[in-house]
């Protein structure tokens, strides 16, 4: 490495480290505050290290609201939505990619066209529909409406089309049905796409805020984001408790993320819309 290049790299590292500190600062401030005693929170200048870690904030935050239940709800909702989306959209995508039938292209166009409609347009009619079905404040309301996006179908169809059709033909000659071709050829060969899509859908539903906010009412039906929001309403300036609750809400996803960084990044980038 030349001298010039080494200097360049040093400068880049310095800039990247400054950037990293900026990105990490909110996390550090959150953890630091979550371990402070109430009287330590309002000090000036701000103390980065609490005099002694005060873990009781976590106990207090966790017991003052059923966070366990919030977790369970988020888990049930995100898992079910992911499974339903993957199952229905991979079947449909198989039909669009591999089968010949009347109206295929126009039906696919209808799917594509709905991608243009933002979720906010569907928010109110879906809310009305959910009430009409008697699903308000239930798991069905949290699980089903978000599970049918044209996006997953579109993405999988593109991917399926990249799998050589000769494989299907060979299997057909051997007497395999379409269902077997879907399950034993197309699905195994799409594992990376399916995994990425699963992460994307799971994470999106795990973090979703607006829809659960709208269709849940009782405390027992809240997911983590909605539960945290109501927690904030109750403890508005108890920053040490709020920060403890925020840590609790973030922690599992962050841990899994650190263990499987590559898959998270892949899942969110191939599916594009994930950043938000």
């Amino acid at each position, binding site marked *: 490495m030349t001298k010039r290049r080494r200097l360049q790299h040093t400068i*880049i590292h310095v800039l990247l480290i400054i950037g990293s500190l900026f990105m990490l600062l909110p*996390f550090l401030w959150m953890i630091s505050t979550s371990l402070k005693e109430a009287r330590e929170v309002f000090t000036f200048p701000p103390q980065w290290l609490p005099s002694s870690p005060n873990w009781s904030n976590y106990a207090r935050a966790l017991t003052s609201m059923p966070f366990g239940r919030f977790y369970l709800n988020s888990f049930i909702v995100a898992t079910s939505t992911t499974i339903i989306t993957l199952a229905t959209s991979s*079947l449909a995508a198989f039909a669009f990619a591999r089968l010949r*039938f009347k109206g295929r292209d126009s039906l696919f166009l209808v799917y594509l066209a709905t991608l243009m409609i933002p979720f906010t*347009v569907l928010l109110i009619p879906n809310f009305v529909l959910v009430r009409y079905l008697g699903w308000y404040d239930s798991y069905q309301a949290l699980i089903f409406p978000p599970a049918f996006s044209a996006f997953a179908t579109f993405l999988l169809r593109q991917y399926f089309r990249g799998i050589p059709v000769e494989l299907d033909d060979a299997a057909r000659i051997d007497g395999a049905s379409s269902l077997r071709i879907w399950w034993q*050829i197309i699905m195994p060969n799409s594992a990376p796409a399916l995994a990425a899509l699963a992460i994307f859908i799971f994470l999106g539903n795990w973090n979703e805020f607006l829809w659960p906010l709208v269709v849940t009412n009782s405390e027992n039906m809240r997911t983590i984001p909605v539960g945290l929001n109501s927690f904030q309403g109750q403890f508005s300036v108890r920053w040490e408790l709020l920060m403890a609750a925020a840590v609790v809400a973030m922690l599992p996803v962050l841990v899994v993320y650190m263990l499987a960084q590559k898959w998270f990044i892949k899942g969110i*980038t191939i599916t594009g819309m994930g950043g938000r």
Partner: protein
Amino acid sequence: MVTQPRRETLNWYFPRGIMSLSSNRTTQLKQPKPRRTGFGKWRPGQQNEAYFFLLPSLLGFAVFVLVPILGAFVLSFFRWNLISTPEFVALRNYQELIFQDAVFRKVLGNTFFYALTIVPLQLVFGLLMAIALNQGIRGLELYRLIYFMPVVTNIVAVAIVFQWLLNRDFGVANAWVWQLADATGWPIAPPDWLNSSFWAKPAVVLLTLWKNVGFTMVIYLAGLQAVPDSLYDASKVDGASTWQRFRYITIPMVSPTTFFLLVIQLIGAFQLFAEPFVMTSGGPAQSSLSIVMYIYQNAFEFGRMGKATAIAWILFAIIFIFTLIQTRLQRRWVHYEVGP
């Protein structure tokens, strides 16, 4: 096989690098063990089979997407609070919004402010960070881990953290200004971010930028990694400066990525909800209220379902027009390589 226009649509949806999953796949294809007891044989007409495969998706899609789209269309011509009998008001919801509703005008302004600050800032910072990471430096994985971390976090949690971070008197963001004021005796005071009608919007922008810039960076990084080194090598031989390489190679080569990000981030920024909802509640005095928050308020606080739906359609129109303009303009600046 693929016709030209279709390739273009796909390109803007999946710029180079992003669809990397779909390439190099032919090597490891799994083949099933041949068995002759399958419960179906090849038929030229696959109509019924197709219905079977489509049914679950189509059913859900019809109930939760197509019907609601129609419902939203109808609902926007009614006045209805969920309990009363819906009253047909024709275009009056739209009329009111466009010509009379001062709050709506304010909300539109706020949302444009969000979109027009967040999107360019994210693109610029995301690209710069991606270029820095793409210089073959050590520790790329660690930096990427850190920068991407906010993307996977829960927006409600980070919005609460930012509330505390931006607290006027005890937040870290203001601390150094206060300390400077104390040390020098200068009459300076940092902004009261969340309670100032001027600073509330920048506070929301700051949070959004912090949370999403890692996403932009990762997408750009994928785009940059697809730029062939030979281009840079050739330009070095020709004596191009760093700036010239950036301006005449990097920028055009990542322009499909830029276009893709521009489209999806504008759509996202126009639909900002949780950030202002949790952090500022849209205040003070509606100064940080976004369109989607206003939809939420109308529907679930004021019981105006029809009006809320009408706002949603106006939002759709705005997004649609912006996307259309971008797809039209892309011919002028987006460079699609006809590579191998």
